[in-house]
């Protein structure tokens, strides 16, 4: 391997050809500039990654047209050819000179164009990225009724721009990294310097710098690599497709990690409180948000407990049900040949199959799956006497409940925990469920997200700052005058009440 480029342009071009052999999308355009010296120059780029019009017009075109260079003779000038090219010859706004091969290749593979000038031991990188990209559209996974409609795309520059447009603050920081030995993926760490906790930012940077892997295909892989506890089923990093959510998080003193080629931006730290918030919550009135949040938490409980409780109550503790209900339950289960736990297992497996089938196949077929699965199988199973009608209700409630939790990863984690609870309840009834719940709570309490307790604010951190006002319920914005305390922000105050009151008095 040669480290630096040589002065001989032919050697350089040959070297590029050697390294990128068998790449037919490599384009090399040789041309000569200057009537006197006839300096050999080459433009090298990868076809498809760049904006060709731009290069033709503002690099090659400008060089050929430039009068100074045309009549360039060494004697008549104080500068070198290279300097002349750099300072006068290019119309392009983004240029950089580089003498090492590594960054040159990296730039070329990212979509920049290399300009070699004969006799110089430096090459010029011209910013010309113009690869095909999706336009900014509405986020697929997080739609809102009222609120901005733009979502992230796969291009990191677009994404950081979308965030920047919402934070016109001089202390917004965008720190770029490139991660992955082979993939050289761009990763941007974004935070607001005088809000975000310094240790938190340092920790995020440290963890990203410590990664040594060949490729980061998507932000999920980065997420797994920087998590505190990778064995846990619970996600310790939040992700979102919405720039407004990221901006809101940054204003709360959290840190965003934007990964190239992924429309999902990571936000740390994540806690059980933040994972239950959805973007819609910012745009809805506080009473409605409070009710929906409570419903969401109820959904979480139902998702986790309704199935195991059904098993525990029918097979272990019929005494806990009201008398009438227990007789009806007995009557409805009268013909079912399986114990409740087997019945539950059957239905849960069916449900998981339907879910997987419905997610992979889109469009009209998934509707068919829904109808066949939900209606026909359920109906037939009850009529055949394999499961009791109540079990169908329980499974249906569980499934609906999985979708009310905003974070997909979070609800998936609870789905996995539910299966464990099923086992516990199948063996020890209510006692087993209680033990299971305690184990889950203990596990959650042990988890940290970037040094912040995962169970915040329920476990104490941030309670004094009033974090509980925006978790299970949300109080009016006027009452949320402090930033959430769980991120330990440097600037705690979000709103100055006295000013607010003054303004209100004027209005009246």
């Amino acid at each position, binding site marked *: 391997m040669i480290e630096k480029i040589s002065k001989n342009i032919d050697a350089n071009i040959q070297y590029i050809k050697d390294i990128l052999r068998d790449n037919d999308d490599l384009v090399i355009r040789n041309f000569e500039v200057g009537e006197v010296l006839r300096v050999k120059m080459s433009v090298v780029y990868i076809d498809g990654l760049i904006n060709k019009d731009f290069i033709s017009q503002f690099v090659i075109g400008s060089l050929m047209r430039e009068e100074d260079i045309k009549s360039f003779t060494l004697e008549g000038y104080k500068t070198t050819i290279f300097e002349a090219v750099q300072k006068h010859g290019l119309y392009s706004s983004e240029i950089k000179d580089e003498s090492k091969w590594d960054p040159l290749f990296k730039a070329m593979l990212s979509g920049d164009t290399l300009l070699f000038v004969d006799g110089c031991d430096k090459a010029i990188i011209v910013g010309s990225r113009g690869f095909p990209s999706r336009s900014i559209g509405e986020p697929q996974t997080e739609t809102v009724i009222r609120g901005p409609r733009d979502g992230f795309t796969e291009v990191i520059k677009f994404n950081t721009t979308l965030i920047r447009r919402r934070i016109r603050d001089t202390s917004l920081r965008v720190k770029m990294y490139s991660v992955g030995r082979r993939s050289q993926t761009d990763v941007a760490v974004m935070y607001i310097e005088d809000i975000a906790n310094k240790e938190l930012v340092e920790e995020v940077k440290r963890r990203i710098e410590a990664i040594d892997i060949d490729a980061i295909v998507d932000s999920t892989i980065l997420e797994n690599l920087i998590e505190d506890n990778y064995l846990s089923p619970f996600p310790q990093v939040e992700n979102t497709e919405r720039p407004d959510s990221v901006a809101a998080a940054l204003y709360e003193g959290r840190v965003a990690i934007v990964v190239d080629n992924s429309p999902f931006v990571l936000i740390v730290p994540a806690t059980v409180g933040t994972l239950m918030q959805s973007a819609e919550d910012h745009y809805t009135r506080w009473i409605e948000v409070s009710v929906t949040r409570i419903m969401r938490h109820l959904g979480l409980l139902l998702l986790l407990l309704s199935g195991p409780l059904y098993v525990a*109550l*029918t*097979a*272990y503790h*019929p*005494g806990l049900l009201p*008398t*009438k209900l*227990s*007789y*009806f*339950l*007995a*009557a*409805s*289960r*009268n013909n*079912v040949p399986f*114990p*409740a*736990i087997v019945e539950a297992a059957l239905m849960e497996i069916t449900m998981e199959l339907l879910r997987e089938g419905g997610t992979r196949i889109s469009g009209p077929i998934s509707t068919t799956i829904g109808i066949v699965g939900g209606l026909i199988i359920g109906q037939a199973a009850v009529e055949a006497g394999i499961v009791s009608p109540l079990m169908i209700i329980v499974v249906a409630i569980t499934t609906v409940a999985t979708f009310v939790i905003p974070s997909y990863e979070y609800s998936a984690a609870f789905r996995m925990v539910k299966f464990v609870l099923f*086992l516990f309840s*199948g*063996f*020890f*009834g209510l006692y087993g469920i209680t033990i299971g719940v305690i184990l889950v709570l203990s596990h959650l309490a042990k988890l940290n997200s970037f040094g912040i307790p995962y169970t915040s604010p329920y476990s104490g951190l941030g309670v004094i700052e009033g974090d509980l006002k925006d978790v299970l319920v949300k109080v009016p914005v006027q009452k949320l005058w402090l930033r959430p305390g769980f991120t330990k922000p440097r600037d705690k105050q979000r709103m100055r009440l006295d000013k607010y009151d003054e303004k209100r008095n004027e209005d009246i």
Partner: protein
Amino acid sequence: MKKKLLIILAISMIFTTGCWDMIEIEDRLLPYTVAIDLSRDGKDNAKRFFICFSYPNINALTEGPSQEDYAFLINANADSIFGAVDQISSRTYNPVFLKHLKVIVLSDQVAQNEQYMREILDGLKRDYIINKMIDLVITRGSAHELLVKKLESSRQHTIEGLFTALLRNKQRSNQFTPMSLKDFIYNMDHKKAAIIPLASGDPEIEIAGGGLFKDYRLIGFIDADENRNISLLNGDANTEDIDFEYNGANISLSLSAIRARKKLVDEENLKIQYQLSVDAQVHQYVIDPDKKLQTTEVFEDIQNKIAKIMVDDFNQTIERLQKEFNADALGILEYLYKFHPKIYKEVEKDWDSIFPYIDIEVDVDVKIRRRGLSDY
């Protein structure tokens, strides 16, 4: 890693040997009523009780029932309820689970034996599973036959058991006062007397009146009116209807907002005064232009009349409790214990000889508030 493997192994061993308590709900026998009689002459003379459980037939509860009988009876001769459960297990393929037991019907013969009562109630109280709010009901003659009668009466079909339904009826009159196991024991501790609703089955199941208990022993029966009077005095009654003749026509009044307060007015001679304040509403009088309910005088006259009728009625009942039964179902001893602990300490020991001679005065204050949708 080895440590983790060991733990996983241990846990999986627990699971593979487990499921000790798993009995599906449809595989359990869930009785709601139990009747206890003295054992009848038969082959099994050694046992003291004839115990009969009634439980719902879950096959009849499904949509499109496969069987018609909505309840079954199963009985056994045994020395205790738990002995009976044991006996039954040889004749049924489902384990008996007593958590949903709601009513226990006692025959008067059982109830007259203090020892039996103390044993049965202790069993119910001591058991971990049985609900302590289980209702007690007493019957003259055979309790078992009452359950049989219940099966025959198809009009009175309910899911949770007929007795429970009758006892829980919110609109019930004051002809009986439900008595739960917990309340019964409380009353025995504090009043030394209690009234258990009396059920009879001719021709339909009916609960009216009660059996009067003193020191865990049945000492007599009171009728529905007496029961009403006692529950009015105890403040257990909320509404009541009363009919009497006034000015040559029947007048029907409904009483509500009944508040009863007892007060010790004379500490020396132990004189107790009851103050009853009642709101009344005219339900029915007569369409007759001459008989109008328009002046305050008429109202006052009616009020006085009712008060007199009620006071007479109360006095009769109190007289019977004091003289005939010598049972403090009114809870005067409890009242003294709570509010006059000094006097309580003096009289507690020989309450039986003091109670019949206590002066009890009843003061009724009726206010007719409404007269219905008629101006006269």
